């Protein structure tokens, strides 16, 4: 048991923390809006040799948190999942961008509001019971959205289409997407807390820093334990997926080891704390938090956008309940 980063993971966290703070300051995040993609950053990240490395999901969650903390305008989670799935040379070099559609294709074969869909030239997802990969040109445009994320509708039946698996394989990839997204949301939450702590010490009202008021302190003090909890849960889910065991859901004994349940729980808990941490931090910024000029609004919008593009959390909780309490009452 080791409930902190390993020595190797600490090295990763430091290296990628430095990389993203150098290459993805909020000026870069702003420059990438509204599309939500920065090509120079993407190329620099490719040179870090993340794609196609033998990094475990746990390691990728360490990196994902640093990407989230920098609000990096690159499709980190989506590309991790697709490049682990397909391992095509263009994906591993970063010349191609991968995306995965959380939603099944509709009757016309359209995947709607695909995360990274605006910039990906390889999109994977379900069309009926087939898990397919489609290579087609990226539109580099999409609907204006809350998070300035590169979302777009994509056609599952045009372009170069290949069947890569079934629903079972899709579920596995979705669990990976949930875990990596959770790690990024942990980074967003940690960033929001840091921004809030810094601001309430600078901002003076009534002749004192507002951070000396107990109501402000308590609003922030609730957050670090929940952020730590989200990080632990995310890494437990990643380890469970890495080990590849079936696991079980002994919920009556609080003993859940099924990787897919853990991935779902990690996404839900991390989404919740990212939404709360950004909301509280923005609130403690007062009116400035609401202005475009301050950075907390960038974090606030991504905390919601990066989570909700995977779906309604209530639906995710109900899907989790189906895993934890599968038996139904007979009428």
């Amino acid at each position: 048991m080791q409930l902190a980063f390993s020595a190797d993971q600490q090295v990763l966290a430091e290296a990628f923390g430095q990389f993203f703070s150098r290459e993805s300051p909020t000026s870069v995040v702003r420059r990438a809006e509204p599309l939500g993609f920065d090509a120079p950053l993407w190329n620099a990240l490719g040179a870090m040799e993340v794609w196609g490395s033998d990094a475990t999901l746990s390691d990728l969650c360490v990196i994902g948190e640093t990407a989230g903390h920098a609000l990096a305008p690159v499709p980190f989670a989506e590309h991790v999942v697709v490049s682990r799935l397909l391992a095509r040379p263009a994906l591993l070099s970063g010349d191609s961008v991968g995306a995965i559609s959380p939603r099944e294709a509709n009757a016309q074969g359209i995947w709607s509001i695909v995360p990274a869909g605006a910039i990906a030239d390889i999109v994977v997802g379900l069309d009926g019971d087939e898990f397919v990969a489609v290579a087609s040109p990226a539109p580099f445009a999409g609907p204006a959205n809350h998070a300035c994320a590169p979302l777009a509708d994509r056609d599952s039946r045009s372009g170069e289409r290949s069947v890569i698996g079934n629903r079972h394989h899709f579920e596995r990839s979705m669990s990976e997407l949930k875990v990596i997204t959770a790690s990024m949301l942990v980074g967003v939450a940690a960033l929001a807390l840091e921004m809030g702590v810094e601001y309430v010490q600078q901002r003076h009202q009534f002749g004192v820093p507002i951070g000396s008021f107990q109501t402000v302190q308590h609003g922030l003090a609730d957050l670090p334990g929940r952020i730590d909890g989200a990080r632990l849960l995310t890494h437990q889910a990643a380890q469970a997926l890495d080990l590849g065991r079936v696991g079980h859901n002994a919920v009556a004994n609080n003993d859940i080891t099924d990787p897919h349940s853990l991935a779902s729980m990690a996404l839900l808990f991390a989404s919740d704390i990212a939404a709360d941490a950004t909301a509280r931090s923005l609130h403690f910024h007062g009116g400035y938090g609401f202005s475009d000029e301050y950075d907390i609004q960038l974090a606030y919008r991504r905390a919601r956008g990066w989570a909700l593009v995977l779906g309604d959390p209530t639906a995710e909780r109900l899907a989790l309940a189906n895993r934890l309490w599968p038996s139904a009452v007979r009428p």
Partner: protein
Amino acid sequence: MDFELAPEVVRYRERVREIIAAHHTPEAVQHQHASGTFNNPALNRALAAEGLVERAVPGLGAGDPIELWVLFNEMEKAGAPLDALAMAVMIAGVVQHVGTAEQKAAVIPAVTAGDALICLGYSEADAGSDLSSLTTRATRDGDQWVINGAKMWTTMAHEARWVILLARTDASLPRHRGLTMFLLPMDTPGVRVDPVHTMATERTNATFYDDVRVGDHCVLGEVNGGWQVMSVALSFERGVMGGSNPGVSLLRHSAQWAHDSRRINEPAVREKLARVAIDNHVAALLTQRSAWIAASGGMPGLEGSMTKLFASEAYQQASRWFQEMAGAEGLLQFQQPGAAADGWIEYDARHSPVTTIYGGTSEIIRNNIAERHLGLPRMRR
């Protein structure tokens, strides 16, 4: 990170589970609720008989240090009464840490046999969150100490063999500095115990100390070093020793209610079940992290505080959700026909309020996190 328990610890956990299953019977539970004394001596002795208590005492070194968490987490998840044994094991750990050879010889075998209980004499009627303002005093008279004062919330005092008593020994020193911890036998002349009954059935006590005379052998740790002794005890207590997973038995009972009342398929019910399952799981992970830090030689004071804050607030929220969903049946108590989850839903709603109070209120914990973890300026009072 690595979340896997060592095989030895897994075996320890399995044996603890078996013993709990054998001794934590419906009759034992009924007896606790009828008597107000939340302790199961047969369970404590059965665990002790196989050395499972001794292995868990911090610093004794018999087992993997993580077993402290395993023991009390399993008891808590099963809904077995654990506070009495947990206090004794925690104080045994403190005695192991700072006690004299004589104190170790008296306390540790008695606790590891599952026999002796030890209660905590910290709070007073007018010194709760502001503990360092306490007024119980111990004055020097020749080679003796003379103790006078009163303590509140001395739970299990009516069954305990010792109390660890925080008393002022030097009023001239700053408030935290002039305190000394005493390890006082409860049968010392001048000690009196009065019951205090609570909303959650469990009995606690007020204890009174009138000209209680003891020698230096009853001083635990250094004279005027009582605050440090208490910090050692708190670092074992918060988060590590149970009290951070009460939502597990709540969820089990709530799922039982949902099945019994045929509401298990309602999305509103299922969503809340899922939420509580996640919170319980996170509370366990945070507790496990505190335990891991302690087992690795650290002092998880702040981490344990964050754990306690999160777990108790989540449990309170959850108990309210399920009592509301159960509606009128959620009001019915044990043994009443139709009571939701046989009365457990109502019981949790009575029990949960205390969890954000005892062992450090949520407000005191938030103050500590704000100042010591986030580095915010000392608060404006």
